[in-house]
């Protein structure tokens, strides 16, 4: 249940990303590129304790080496509900208030900045919308397809089953990531971020529905011989009705578990694609493409904070696995592995 709590927190943050993030997705402070993380402090240079946390102003020391020096003369208190860029809470309420922030020209870079001086923390929050939503979208697409396809194949059996499963096996016969990569090359390049995001959902779903179908088929196949199905058939219930009203509801507990455990797969698929530049592209952010900023050696060595988005991927995936395992133990102990 820890998993569920973590996920709830992450999704809430994603929902309110605009308010929680001190800066917008595109905000760039060109003077502070590759700035290291700057955490709020309580004790100033003279050793005085401040009740309100503050950040110092930083000045470029050496732009080539990307070093910054603290200017102890100017400090900016961190404000709760600070004024900042205008945005819309939940896409509706227009406001300029952010949960926290500092007055300009002070800057608060909790997790440092990238090569354009964009705040990594803010971009992680904005990017979480892509990374977290993609898993849910993919599941909501593959679940109905997989249930119907697998249900029909398992219920009718014989030649229909054989043909349908051959099609599934063809797609499953590819190394998933190779196929994902090739398919993403089909996508048009000159489309907006949102369109591209949906296209990526489509190709991940195109690969994802197969495993689920095979699983559902495997459960339906023995089920159709059971008494309650035979009874339904004996009193003249139609095939479609048997499938929808009697067979599929019996797969629910398994489907819930499998759905939960399939979400991290989609998230990892998207971040892998975006990481290699085939998924969500700049200027949009997802955890995968944020991480790709740290992928070349000089950046990795000089700006290791660019790796932080990876931690968010891990936390999310661990949380989903925890949740899925927990659900499995609660709903259907027979499936228990470890």
């Amino acid at each position, binding site marked *: 249940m820890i998993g569920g709590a973590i996920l709830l927190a992450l999704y809430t943050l994603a929902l309110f990303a605009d308010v929680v993030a001190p800066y917008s997705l595109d905000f760039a402070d060109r003077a502070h590129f590759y700035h290291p993380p700057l955490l709020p402090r309580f004790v100033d240079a003279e050793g005085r304790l401040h009740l309100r946390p503050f950040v110092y102003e930083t000045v470029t020391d050496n732009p080539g080496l990307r070093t910054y020096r603290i200017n102890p003369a100017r400090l900016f208190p961190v404000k709760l509900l600070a004024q900042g860029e205008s945005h819309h809470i939940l896409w509706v309420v227009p406001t300029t208030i952010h949960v926290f922030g500092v007055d300009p020209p002070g800057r608060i870079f909790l997790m440092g900045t990238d090569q354009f001086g964009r705040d990594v923390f803010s971009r992680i929050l904005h990017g979480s919308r892509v990374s977290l939503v993609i898993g849910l979208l993919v599941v909501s697409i593959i679940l109905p397809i997989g249930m119907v396809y697998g249900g029909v194949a398992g219920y009718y059996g014989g030649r229909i089953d054989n043909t349908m499963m*051959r*099609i599934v*096996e*063809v*797609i499953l*016969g*590819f*190394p998933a*990531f*190779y*196929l994902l*990569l*090739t*398919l993403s*090359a*089909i996508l*048009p*390049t000159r489309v907006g971020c949102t369109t591209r995001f949906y296209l990526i959902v489509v190709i991940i779903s195109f690969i994802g529905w197969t495993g689920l179908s095979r699983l559902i088929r495997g459960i339906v196949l023995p089920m159709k011989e059971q008494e309650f199905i035979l009874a339904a058939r004996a009193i003249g219930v139609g095939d479609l009705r048997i499938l929808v009203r009697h067979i599929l509801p019996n797969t629910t507990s398994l489907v819930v578990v499998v759905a939960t455990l399939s979400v*991290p797969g989609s998230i*990892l698929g998207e*971040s*892998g694609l975006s*990481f*290699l530049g*085939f998924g969500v592209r700049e200027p949009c952010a997802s955890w995968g493409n944020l*991480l790709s900023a*740290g*992928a070349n*050696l000089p950046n*990795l*060595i000089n700006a*290791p904070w660019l*790796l932080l988005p*990876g931690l968010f*991927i*891990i936390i999310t*995936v*661990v949380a989903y*696995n*925890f949740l899925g395992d927990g659900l499995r133990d609660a709903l259907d102990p027979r499936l*228990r*592995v*470890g």
Partner: protein
Amino acid sequence: MWRYIARRGINLIPLLFGISLLSFIAIQLSPGDFLAEVRLNPVVSQQTVDEMRRDFGLDQPIHVQYAKWLWRVLHLDFGYSFAFQVPVMWLIRSHLVNTLILNIAALAIAWLLAIPIGIRAATRQYSLTDNTFSLGAYLGISTPTFFSGLVLLFLAFKTGWLPIGGMTGLDYEDLPWYGKALDVARHLVIPAAVLGFGAAAGLMRQMRGNLLEVLRADFVRTARAKGIGERPVIYKHAVRNAINPLITIFGFEIGHLLSGSAILENVVSWPGLGRLILESVVRKDLYVVMGALVIGGTTLVVGNLVADILLVVADPRIRYD
């Protein structure tokens, strides 16, 4: 037994046909002309471009193109790489070896770690060791290889212990054979560790789960009741039965030998098949992508077949007929 293998083998034919067809369709759908890059090259004359077009059959209807390509593939001729100007088969073979080196090393690490740890964790269920390893396994299956790869590269740079990326050092050509082997081995440590630990995590969970189940079985209780010591009970009776389901996983891993490391290869610049396919997708190097897809797919389905056959061989209770 042999009939089973033969029947499964015949079933592979439509499957492989489907794989080749889907690869072909996927490539045909991608925008852009494959000869566009060649045409931009000032050294290549228009006449050569036309010749290439005819050679590759690009001027013919799509189903003829497919039939021609398939005919060649059946003769293990995957065509010609536009970008590298060498036969695709040659290109794939050279990268394939590197990918195999990496994946076999990772496989060895995974099994050597996972089996003993899984046994230990299961025999001491809910102990501190078990909980630690189980938590570690959770992290292991949840960490994308590109992230752990980057972190290890970062550490390698900070400590200076290991080379950062690539497969060979600068002075590779001048080294004697044992120096060459050592050089490659040093470059292998990071990617093999990333892949190996990741695979070990899943495998260890599986081993632990299986063994826990077997330890609850009646025959284990009987063995204990007969007065056999705890060690022989575990190693002679329980472990043997618990390893059985892992054979399926082994076959699955054989199938993924060529594709499991795809993303990681790009992170640590390992010159393998994953890197080749990525570069070829970027360059629209049509025949290389198709060849890699077909070879990757074939390995996968053959791996699955091997897994099923191994299972029949290892467990006489399972009979497919």
